[in-house]
């Protein structure tokens, strides 16, 4: 034990000491280098390039001629695939959630973003309008009848052919197992016209049916195989059609997949994709930098800067806001039910500055109103703009004054106090709450921040509640206004959200005509009319429209970011050695 021991101890001691020194140095060094560096503004360039440089090329195998909506395929890939048939790489992707079951009827978000499930229609990357995917097109024969053509050459992972019978069974299964989808689709009958055509009838007119069929829960599945496999064994059924087949799934942890070589769009250049759940944004970014993963979903603004500064990594975004970062406004509690106080609160918060904080250029944009530009621009509809002086006037008008000189206003001895809620998983929400708290204090409104869990939104304990929500469902502007005031179901939560208990009776008549209007301009007009009311009454308080921002290794090829977060991995994404 003598000499060696002393030696080993000496070295461990030195190591420990060195460790601390190294830590100090490591943490000190980047502080000096990055704080001097100009802030990164180059994030848009690669994204633009990628978006424009993709040539239109029909994919192999599929009957491309009759299908205008074939996803573009990159030129170099078929060759690359042929060469590297034996040793295709596997991509490791860090995702936020892996929390829902694989069977799409349960939600479909996991399988859709993973490139496993596909729908009859999907939202286009350019303007988020519905475009054919497994369908070839849809014709509205009469207000209640739709004829939908189907793509040929599509097979399920188990080898079965996707024909009209299969699609009919799939839709019937969706209606049977997903009440929310059944509600939104409103389908009465599904019938087979011929092998590649089905006919749908609805009970009420559904002018946006193709859009509604983009909901991930309505993905086309091999119903017979799924039902035969039984509950909990969906993975074994091979019942999906996407370029990747799930091979193992540990909920909240890991989803592994292998390429489906007979995919109708072409053979994927990857052997498979491993999806690893890393809920914390910061950890995902670190894992990407350390090379543990090749692809990270949703970077923070800070992460974009750090990752773009590295030679072997890049960030990409489509630069189109598809999610809204906002506050629910509680009409049920007394405080904000008073329109004067509500407006005073809205005017006291500099939402544009907060947007610059949580969704700076390249990661999002200021949301003056609820709807993102991609869906509709409504001239003349403007949100409450920051005006603390006016806010103080409104407070005085509502009878509030600082009588006890503590810097906060009160009325009849009761201080004006509001609670700003939120949940921590979306990094924007705590920051937003804190910033608003300070801004409200400036006009004399005391605000309490309570960052808890998302389901607190259902409890009557808050006045403003931070929220992150998809705002491009079905690509329909009307739906994406009315779902926030409880008039229609949200595709993500499959339920009507009206957490603020806003009285939507005034909107019912405005939105009613949307039941029959199918042209987009008409729907935009209706949406704008509804939006004007929602904005005027401050039913919700939007802050920012967030982009989907991806971080990836330079080795990743063929990735063309789609603005919507249900479309991430397709058959074109590859990895070079």
């Amino acid at each position: 034990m003598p000499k060696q021991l002393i030696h080993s101890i000496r070295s461990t001691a030195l190591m420990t000491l060195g460790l601390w020194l190294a830590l100090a140095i490591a943490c000190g060094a980047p502080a000096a280098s990055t704080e001097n560096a100009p802030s990164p503004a180059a994030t848009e360039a690669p994204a633009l390039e990628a978006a424009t440089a993709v040539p239109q090329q029909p994919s192999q195998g599929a009957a491309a001629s009759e299908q205008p909506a074939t996803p573009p395929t990159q030129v170099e890939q078929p060759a690359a695939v042929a060469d590297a048939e034996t040793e295709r790489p596997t991509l490791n992707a860090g995702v936020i959630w892996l929390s829902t079951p694989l069977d799409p009827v349960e939600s479909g978000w996991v399988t859709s973003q993973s490139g496993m499930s596909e729908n009859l229609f999907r939202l286009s990357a350019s303007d988020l309008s519905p475009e054919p995917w497994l369908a070839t097109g849809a014709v509205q024969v009469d207000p209640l009848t739709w004829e939908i053509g189907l793509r040929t050459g599509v097979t399920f992972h188990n080898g079965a052919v996707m024909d009209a019978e299969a699609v009919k069974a799939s839709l019937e299964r969706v209606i049977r197992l997903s009440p929310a989808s059944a509600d939104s689709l409103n389908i009465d009958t599904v019938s087979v016209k011929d092998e590649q055509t089905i006919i749908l009838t609805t009970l009420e007119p559904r002018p946006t049916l193709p859009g509604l069929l983009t909901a991930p829960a309505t993905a086309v599945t091999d119903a017979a195989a799924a039902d035969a496999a039984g509950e909990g064994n969906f993975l074994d059924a091979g019942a999906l059609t996407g370029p990747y087949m799930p091979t193992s799934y540990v909920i909240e942890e890991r989803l592994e997949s292998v390429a489906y070589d007979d995919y109708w769009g072409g053979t994927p250049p990857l052997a498979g994709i491993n999806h690893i759940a890393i809920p914390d944004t910061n950890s995902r970014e670190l894992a990407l930098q350390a090379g543990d993963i090749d692809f990270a979903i949703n970077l923070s603004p800070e992460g974009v800067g750090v990752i773009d500064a590295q030679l072997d990594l890049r960030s990409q975004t489509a630069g189109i806001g598809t999610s809204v970062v906002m506050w629910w406004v509680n009409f049920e509690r007394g405080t904000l039910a008073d329109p004067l106080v509500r407006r005073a609160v809205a005017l006291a918060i500099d939402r544009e500055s907060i947007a610059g904080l949580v969704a700076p250029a390249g990661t999002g944009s200021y949301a003056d109103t609820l709807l993102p530009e991609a869906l509709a621009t409504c001239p003349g509809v403007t949100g409450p703009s920051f005006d603390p002086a006016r806010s103080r006037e409104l407070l005085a008008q509502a009878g509030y004054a600082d009588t006890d000189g503590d810097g906060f206003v009160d009325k009849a001895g009761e201080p004006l106090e509001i609670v700003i809620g939120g949940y921590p998983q979306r990094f924007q929400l705590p920051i937003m709450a804190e910033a608003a708290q300070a801004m409200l204090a400036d006009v004399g409104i005391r605000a309490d921040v309570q960052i808890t869990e998302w389901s607190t939104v259902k409890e009557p304990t808050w006045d403003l509640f931070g929220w992150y929500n998809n705002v491009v469902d079905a690509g329909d502007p009307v739906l994406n206004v009315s779902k926030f005031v409880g008039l229609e179901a949200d595709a993500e939560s499959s339920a009507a959200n009206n957490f603020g208990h806003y009285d939507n009776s005034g909107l019912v008549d405005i939105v009613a005509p949307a039941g029959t209007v199918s042209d987009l301009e008409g729907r935009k007009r209706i949406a704008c009319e509804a939006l004007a009311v929602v904005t005027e009454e401050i039913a919700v308080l939007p802050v920012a429209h967030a982009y989907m921002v991806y971080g990836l290794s330079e080795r990743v090829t063929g990735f063309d970011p789609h603005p919507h977060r249900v479309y991430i991995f397709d058959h074109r994404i590859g990895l070079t050695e």
Partner: protein
Amino acid sequence: MTVEAQRSGGRVPVPTVAGSSRRRRRHQWTALVREPGTALGLFLVVSLLLAGLLAPWLPLDDPTEISLPDRLLPPSAEHLLGTDHLGRDTFSRVVHGARLTLLAAAVTLALSMTIALTVGILSGYHGGWPDTALMGVVDLLLAFPSLILALAVAGALGPGLFNVLLAAGAVWWVGHARIIRGVTLGARQMEYVTAAHAAGAGNLRIILRHIAPNILGPIIVIASLDVGWIILGIAGLNFLGLGAQPPTPEWGAMLNDARPHLQTAPRLLLLPGAAIFLAVLGFNLLGDGLRDLLDPRTVRPGG
């Protein structure tokens, strides 16, 4: 995280600081300062106390005043340690954090000590079935690592600094109760206590006059050794997002807020981290010194 004190059942580790002061009781307090480690501990604790007590009156920026144009500024004359992600002065937040940390530690300590004293004295003084029952409960609770139990209680109560303190106080007392029981037991068996008892002195009187002075030393030692763990534990719970709500300048919560800036402004993470480290180090060093001074043998249960 008082596992050490807890599981060792009061066998507080034998001092690492040289025990020379032990024998020279008359130099007690000067000896305390003469030991470099203890002196450093004392210095750190006193600085922390001063910072905590004086924070509102020091010429510091408002720790909660946000200023978005000034966010993430590097250290400068105006902002000694720069600003955080909302443009708040980091130095001011760290100093005010001392106030909160001390307050949190004090509340937790007071809560846990109250329970520990009640249980420990009752158990040690009374003996019999209450002793058996109470120590049974203690044995039972010792099976739960305290941070984990605190996490569970805080999770059940919902996020909030008050809930975290409640949770910590509710679980932190377990090990101390056993130590106090041992010391009480030892004191009770002393002759003068038996004599006082025979003379017809009331129980409360005996406890206050004879038992209390005997357990004061051990309590001071336990408390000072424990504050460090409490600070670490509470900061840990806050770091996990279960504690202080914004804009409270709490060190653990500050660390959590700083994570996105780990690479761009690591000082935001390092400063509260260093503050926690120094505070814990200070209390640990001071506790070690106090233990040496107050004779560790009295701390051992069962005499």
